[in-house]
């Protein structure tokens, strides 16, 4: 256990150096345009390419174009939850305040993306498979992921003491991360109606390059868009945190109490 504490110290110092909430406001403001504009451009290019210029599939015809929105959403649904799990570790081990605020903001965005993944998958399944929904391992495990997101959103806001909510939600996020490999490998471990992955790390993609490129562009665009929205929400979240602490801090002597602070908040909110 000689090496561990120094690693822990260094890792902790690194997080606090580069990711404390105050520093994050500066970093986030600088980063925002570099996320937002490429996200808009790449998403529009990818979707336009997919919708109008990429070829139709030999057996699915034009329905294959749903892939260009469905696959990026599916990728982000899993990645968003992985990000929640990373925040959970940072929160549980290092008690990092920014990780808690990030978890609050990632949850709803991830849930929206997962819902879109399920809905677009349904819209794809009806004309191709002949059904809106089946209870196969892939579809069911993604539905479970959606409920995990909903549970996380509810749990992190459920307590009067936010710290308790952060702790409980972090535990849920870590436990739920077990679902991620299940989603990934469900199409290999069990026979499912959902087809296996076309793009793998080990083999050539079983997809024409004329479809692969627009898919990669729109996936990159969606990913940057997800990051841009999360960064914007997190900046707002940090500011709200600061506003709350300014309003409740008894700086002007002990006479300033919570009621005064609250009336101030109402004035500002109007």
């Amino acid at each position, binding site marked *: 256990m000689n090496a561990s504490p120094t690693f822990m110290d260094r890792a902790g110092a690194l997080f606090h150096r580069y990711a404390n909430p105050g520093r994050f*406001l500066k970093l*986030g403001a600088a980063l925002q345009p570099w996320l937002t504009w490429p996200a808009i451009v790449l998403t529009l290019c990818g979707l336009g390419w997919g919708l109008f210029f990429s070829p139709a599939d030999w057996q699915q015809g*034009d*329905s294959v174009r749903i892939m260009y929105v*469905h696959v990026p*959403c599916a990728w982000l649904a899993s990645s968003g939850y992985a990000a929640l799990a990373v925040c959970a570790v940072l929160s549980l081990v290092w008690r990092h305040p920014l990780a808690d605020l990030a978890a609050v903001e990632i949850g709803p965005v991830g849930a929206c993306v997962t819902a879109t993944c399920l809905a677009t998958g349904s819209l794809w399944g009806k004309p191709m498979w002949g059904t809106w929904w089946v209870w196969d391992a892939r579809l069911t495990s993604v539905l479970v992921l959606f409920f995990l997101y909903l549970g996380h959103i509810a749990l992190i806001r459920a307590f009067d003491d936010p710290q308790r909510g952060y702790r409980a939600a972090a535990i849920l996020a870590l436990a739920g991360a077990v679902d991620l490999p299940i989603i990934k490998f469900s199409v290999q471990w069990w026979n499912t109606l959902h087809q296996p992955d076309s793009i793998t790390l080990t083999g050539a993609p079983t997809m024409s390059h004329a479809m692969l490129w627009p898919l990669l562009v729109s996936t990159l665009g969606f990913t940057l868009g997800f990051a841009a929205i999360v960064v914007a*929400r997190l*900046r707002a979240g940090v500011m709200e945190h600061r506003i709350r602490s300014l309003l409740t801090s008894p700086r002007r002597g002990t006479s300033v109490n919570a009621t005064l602070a609250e009336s101030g908040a109402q004035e500002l909110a109007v």
Partner: protein
Amino acid sequence: MTHLPYILAAYGLAGALALYLSIGAALRLRRDRARLATLEAARGRQPVDGQTETGRAGVSA
């Protein structure tokens, strides 16, 4: 195009979601920035627990 309604519904859904999330985030950011600026101005720009510097960075962004 075959199955055009399904394709349009999928793209429409994704577009609506993207607009909803991004406009929501932008409005929230603008509102919070204004609130924080008002609040810090009301405090007479006194250093608040050493946080004023970062607070201003957020405001000016």
